[in-house]
């Protein structure tokens, strides 16, 4: 890659007290890419995302956004930069309507017309949300809540979408549907960092991937290379 990456992690370390969740992680994402961050439970994937959106401090190393260091930014300001983090477990605002959730996704934006266009785009992407726009988000099914969480993250009109386990807890059919949506978003130009335990689904849409194990990078490469990698196949794809 010759151009400046949109996001670059240099020797990133994240820890909870004395326990290191992530160590010496180098990762970069170019504009327009979909990059998968893979690994089993507790490998440090979510902690990496939480460090990027500044929910957790980086204990060591750097997070660079278009060559600018994010260490002095607050979470709210990373949203302003264009980083939208769709958190693990959906975390929709259960007591508010679908519409209110989406409107809050556009909290920092002031251009009403542009917001309306994006709202229509989200409803087109997830027609189920349009049907239920005045229902409380807490009354939606798990799959619908996941759609809402993604749509809400899109309402910030991000330059980079951080997705934390979007397929978690969804029926296989829904996972396919969701991944197709994500592939379409990426094709339309959205840069994504996709955290997944569902390696197969993630590598179907990502161009490149990184594999974490116990907080350390063990493998990286193009999606094609990773799909062929025998270690990865043994560990995650169930091959012998």
């Amino acid at each position, binding site marked *: 890659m010759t151009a400046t990456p949109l996001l670059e992690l240099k020797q990133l370390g994240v820890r909870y007290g004395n326990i290191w969740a992530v160590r010496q992680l180098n990762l970069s994402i170019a504009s327009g890419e979909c990059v998968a961050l893979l690994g089993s439970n507790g490998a440090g994937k979510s902690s990496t995302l939480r460090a990027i959106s500044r929910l957790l401090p980086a204990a060591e190393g750097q997070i660079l956004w278009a060559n600018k260091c994010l260490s002095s930014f607050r979470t*709210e300001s990373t*949203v302003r930069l264009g980083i939208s983090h769709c*958190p693990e477990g959906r975390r929709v*605002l259960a007591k*508010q309507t679908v519409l*209110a959730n989406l*409107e*809050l996704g556009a*909290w920092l934006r002031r251009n009403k017309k542009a917001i309306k266009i994006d709202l229509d785009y989200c409803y087109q992407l997830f027609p189920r949300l349009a049907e239920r726009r005045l229902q409380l988000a*807490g009354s939606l099914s798990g799959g619908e809540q996941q759609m809402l969480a993604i749509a809400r993250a899109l309402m910030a009109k991000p330059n980079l979408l951080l997705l934390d386990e979007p397929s978690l807890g969804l029926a296989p059919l829904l996972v396919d549907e969701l991944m197709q949506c994500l592939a379409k978003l990426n094709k339309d130009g959205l840069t994504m960092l996709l955290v997944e335990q569902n390696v197969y689904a993630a590598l179907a849409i990502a161009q490149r991937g990184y594999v974490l194990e116990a907080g350390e990078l063990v493998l990286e490469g193009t999606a094609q290379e990773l799909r062929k990698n025998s270690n990865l196949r043994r560990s995650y794809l169930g091959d012998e």
Partner: protein
Amino acid sequence: MDGLLQLLINGISIGATYALFALGYTLVFSVLGVINFAHGAVFTCGAYFTYLLLGGAVGSNGMLAGMHFPLALPLLVALPLAGIGAAAMGLLVEAVAFKPLRRRGAEPLLYLITSLGAGVILVNLIQLLMGAEAYALPGNLLGRWPAVLALGHGVQIRTVQLLLLIVAGIAMLILSLWLNRSSYGKALQAVAEDGTTARLLGINSGAIIQLAFAIASFLAGISGGLVALSVNIGGPYFGIGYGLKGLGVLVLGGLGSAPGAVLGGLIIGIAEALVPAKLSAYKDAVAFAFLFLMLILRPQGLLGKPPMEKV
């Protein structure tokens, strides 16, 4: 029957004050998950601000003895200004007693102690500046309005009570519309429901918390002024009793439930009014009897929901 109606009117108008008070607790509780024990002191500040803005002079015991505000403002100007003054006090309390702890991610129990401390300091400051004496608000505030309105059948309502009801009603209406319709109201609810998610949406939760303090303290300030109008200011500890009762209302209605705060306020106000005159010394016990009963029968309060989460 008419006697009962009269008691109901009295009960509702005092209950409306309790409701305003509890709404303030509720707002802060919903965004922070802690109770602001300085709220009663802010209420007291509102009462003193109202007194001063109406042109009242400081008595002989305080450091400000003999001084007075250069203008005697009309009531309907003084009251909102006192509310704004109280809101400033509330923001001060937030900056001193809450923000440093929040930054550090401190235990909720610590907020209890720091806010109680801030409240004690405020009350003592009032005593230092204004003395410990009682203050009576000027009697001619209502101008040409009669002091008492007859509603027929021997039932009557004091103009002050009516004013209290109207202001409380309007404040609650605006607050509920604001919370449910405006974007800032929705953002406040988002912070209340899930602070981390709110931050991920770009909502500055610190600013929203300050907003909650400002609104809660504004409400406390105007209710302080209105109560002072109705019963006069008994001294710097004026707000403590109301503050404790507001806590009872809060628990009765359900922690964090705004409609619950209003309902709880009205129930306790009416219940107090129904206490026979002979036993009026035990009026305060009624509020807390309700509180205990509620904790036994329905710990989440009247309109509070037991914790429930969809997996």
